[in-house]
């Protein structure tokens, strides 16, 4: 390699290192703003902003969904397995909304409850046919019942 080419290669290496460094610093500084949502634990720790709209993400707690008989309002608990936040929402939910599902919701905290304006379902990275899902559920249930009888 001629010295000139070596110099150009070195210059590109330096450029890439400098850009990576700058971007890494910028992203670290912006870390909180890049996260799409806050978790229930962050709300419990007081990290979420007061009196402004923000996003909250977590899993819908099994058995916590309460639907109104007269209108579209719904209440449910969201958890990140550590803390729980109660969410109230009025409107149409996405198809994937169900108990145990991860969701992201936009709204604000009022009187300790999260009043949602929008509810989005978060899909996980698992893809399987219905019969496999049923078999998995069955296997879990069997494990659970054998544990129960063992106790």
């Amino acid at each position, binding site marked *: 390699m001629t010295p000139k080419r070596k110099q150009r290669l070195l210059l*590109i290496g330096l450029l890439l290192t400098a850009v990576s460094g700058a*971007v890494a610093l910028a992203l670290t500084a912006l*870390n909180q703003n890049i996260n*799409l949502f806050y*978790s229930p634990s962050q709300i419990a720790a007081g990290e979420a902003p007061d009196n402004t709209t923000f996003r909250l993400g977590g899993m819908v707690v099994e058995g916590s969904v309460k639907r109104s008989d007269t209108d579209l309002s719904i209440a449910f608990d969201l958890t990140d397995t550590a803390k729980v936040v109660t969410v109230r929402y009025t409107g149409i939910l996405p198809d994937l909304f169900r108990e145990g599902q991860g969701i992201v919701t936009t709204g604000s905290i009022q009187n300790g409850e999260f009043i949602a304006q929008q509810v989005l379902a*978060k*899909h996980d*990275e698992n893809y399987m046919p219905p019969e496999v899902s049923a078999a998995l559920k069955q296997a879990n249930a069997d494990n659970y019942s054998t544990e129960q009888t063992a106790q």
Partner: protein
Amino acid sequence: MTTESLNSSSRGKKWLWFHRFGSPAWVYGFASRWAMPIGVVALLLFVVGLYQGLVVAPPDYQMGDSYRIIFIHVPSAWLSMFSYFVMAVSAGIGLVWHIKVSDLVARSVAPLGAMFTFCALVTGSLWGKPTWGTYWVWDARLTSELVLLFLFIGYIALSNAIEDRRTASRASAVLALVGLINLPIIHFSVEWWNTLHQGATVTKLGRPSIDTRMLIPLLIMFFAFNFYFLSAMLYRLRCELLSQERRTQWVREIVND
């Protein structure tokens, strides 16, 4: 260019095969020979993959049939990043070693990459509406993929905005290299931050969390897209070579034939 390839051939047999890729005339012949067969393989794989994916593969337990968009979305997204990598590396090689063919490879890949990025964004958005409940959300994965589209468009615009070919290649190569930093950001965005977009299914450590009957059509489509990319790139490279070398003897011979 011709003097350089002549000099290099005298350096030793070991490098002969490699240096042929620096000769526009040889690469033109290479591209002409391979573009068609590779394209045919891609077409066959597309037919098999689409049939397997849309007809044979079972529906998803949660999303039903709408998950089938992954057979287009995932290969497009992969190729959007792979094209960018190929584009930036060959533009970088052109910048350091002043190899014209390398600059032309970068030029011919750019529109393909932009197309794949656009496909990934649109298919993802169409899937997002029924599944998430929204077409678009400014999470880290979606935003960084959109930045990738702008990088491709910026590269194409810059390399065409400058009249002088060598200056154009040099300026756009720097842009392509700087944009390289976006690739790890796209890939790791779903791990580094909370995003609405799900994590990796296939390219993670351990077993892919997708049923085998769904994984096989996905892999077939993945290869179909890659072969298509290669074939389209060679076709585009032929055009770029002819237009760049239009004043040389070998192009005149081809045109006169």
